[in-house]
């Protein structure tokens, strides 16, 4: 008698979000990228569909990233002061699926760049690469509220992913996206309740935006609470698969940013001989962190180190191999 292997049945699935727009669609991208659409837990191809592979965005800044570890100079040192060239290098040499521009220079305490300068810079990056683009503010909410609309207007038609919307500050970026048909990153501080509430608030501003949300659940680095992030993402994804519409959005995580700001990735070998060579250690830290988030259901990984990106893209190839039976 044949044994019937039990498979989980899910009621619902994650929504799909398209990023970027080609010429025919009103933009200038060479192609679009669709994320989400899962109807099973990560890579359980035997229980449902994983129609779109997770993608890797590489992070660039609009100013020279003084705080980045020196090991990045070998790869990006020649293009640090030219974000368009930096973006091009990420795509052409290191295989980035998307580019995430962090407009750190808009920070009033750093370069205090004007909204117009920020919009110009995003336009230049769009001209330099054909992949869809993610635009993130400086992290200073008051200033960021002033840059979203000029960027969204200047890039109307490009179907950007813009962020970040937070519980206390979601209206400025959401209305900029609403008016110009861009997508929005809804960021919550490793908190499922705030994650859901923020999605509700954005959807209340415009029901159409409910289909344009990417959840940023906040991903901690390995050793810094990765298990908390994992359990939140697992809960959100289970909620989505069981029919909770306000959690049924694709997810994004800044694995590079989080991994490269901790001491384990940065302390030189001379200070901690037992920890081994610093760059290799940092790459491993970023890679391991990113791998864990692939298993948690992440749809867009934002990464930094070219070697970590290479390994993770190979990992995604393996995970996307059909294991259904």
């Amino acid at each position, binding site marked *: 008698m044949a044994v019937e292997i039990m498979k989980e049945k899910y009621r619902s699935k994650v929504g799909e979000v398209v990023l970027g727009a080609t010429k025919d669609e009103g933009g200038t991208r060479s192609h679009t990228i669709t994320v989400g659409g899962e109807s099973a837990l990560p890579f359980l191809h035997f229980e449902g569909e994983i129609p779109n592979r997770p993608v890797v965005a590489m992070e660039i800044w609009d100013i020279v990233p003084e705080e980045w570890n020196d090991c990045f100079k070998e790869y990006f040192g020649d293009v640090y002061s030219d974000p368009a060239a930096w973006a091009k290098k990420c795509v052409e040499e290191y295989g980035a699926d998307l580019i995430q521009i962090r407009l750190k220079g808009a920070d009033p305490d750093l370069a205090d760049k004007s909204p117009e300068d920020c919009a110009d810079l995003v336009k230049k990056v769009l001209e330099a690469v054909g992949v869809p683009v993610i635009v993130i503010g400086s992290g200073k909410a008051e200033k960021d509220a002033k840059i979203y609309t000029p960027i969204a207007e200047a890039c109307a038609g490009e179907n950007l992913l813009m962020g970040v919307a937070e519980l206390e500050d979601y209206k400025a970026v959401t209305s900029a996206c609403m008016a110009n048909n861009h997508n929005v990153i809804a960021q919550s501080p490793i908190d*499922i*309740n*705030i994650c*859901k*509430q923020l999605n*509700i608030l954005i959807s209340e501003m415009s029901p159409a935006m409910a289909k344009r949300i990417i959840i940023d659940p906040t991903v901690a680095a390995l050793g810094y609470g990765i298990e908390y992030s994992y359990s939140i993402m697992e*809960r*959100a994804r289970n*909620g989505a698969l069981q029919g*909770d*519409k*306000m*959690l049924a959005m694709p997810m994004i995580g800044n694995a590079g940013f989080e991994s490269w700001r901790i001491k384990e990735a940065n302390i030189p070998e001379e200070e901690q001989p037992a920890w081994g060579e610093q760059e290799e250690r940092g790459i491993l830290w970023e890679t391991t962190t990113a791998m864990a988030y692939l298993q948690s259901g992440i749809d867009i990984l934002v990464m930094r180190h070219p070697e970590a990106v290479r390994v993770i893209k190979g990992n995604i190839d393996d995970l996307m191999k059909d294991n259904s039976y």
Partner: protein
Amino acid sequence: MIIIGERINGMFQDIAKAINDRDPKAVQEWARQQEYNGAHYLDINVGPSSREPVEAMKWLVEVTQEVSDLPLCLDSTKYDAIEEGLKVCKQPPMINSVPAEMPKMERVFAMAAEHGAEVICLTMNEEGIPKDADVRVGLAAELVATADAYGIAPDMLYIDPLVLPCNVAQDHGPEVMRTLREIKMISDPAPKTTVGLSNISQGTKNRELINRTFAVMAMANGLDSAIADACDDELMAAVAAARIILDMDIYCDSFVDVFKQHNR
């Protein structure tokens, strides 16, 4: 919890008049309102005094479906009326209801199997409504076994343990709670459960309070659905809160709105 909106019922005067005059306005208004307030199904009952229940059922189903995509719950003791309704439903409805009496089970389960309909099953037979939980559960098992013979899975059944007004039959309350718990042990998958919520408060003061208190207590004991007043905001809020406490929905500050707005 699945709310089966009770308002399209010929025992209400506005619906009886609508059926009599074939004027769909009141029916459609209640369909819209119940859907807006979060009902998952709409109960359709031509009422006890209808002289032509078969035609009236067909008409009620058709005019309701003109304004709402919710699945329906065809509510009648006249199975010809239910059969007529089944033919015009756009999606498989619930049949409301069948007792544990053989000729009735044969008729209803055959119809349900043919149309892919779910069935509300009453834990009563020719001898009436039993008082204690054991007899109720025994009748539930009979219903599950008979449905199985027609190829109907247990989770297509909603067992109604039948509640009596709390001022008339107070001793039934704990028995109903125990019945709800034990029904879940009859089979795997377990049958679902339902109640006619407002029966608990017939003839009492403060009916809404009794209804919503019963609802949350019954949910904690395994109640999956109720035929209820979807436009009772306090009831819907209490159900939303109970779903949070039972970990059926993930909490967020707008949890009441989220529960009520799932149709919108």
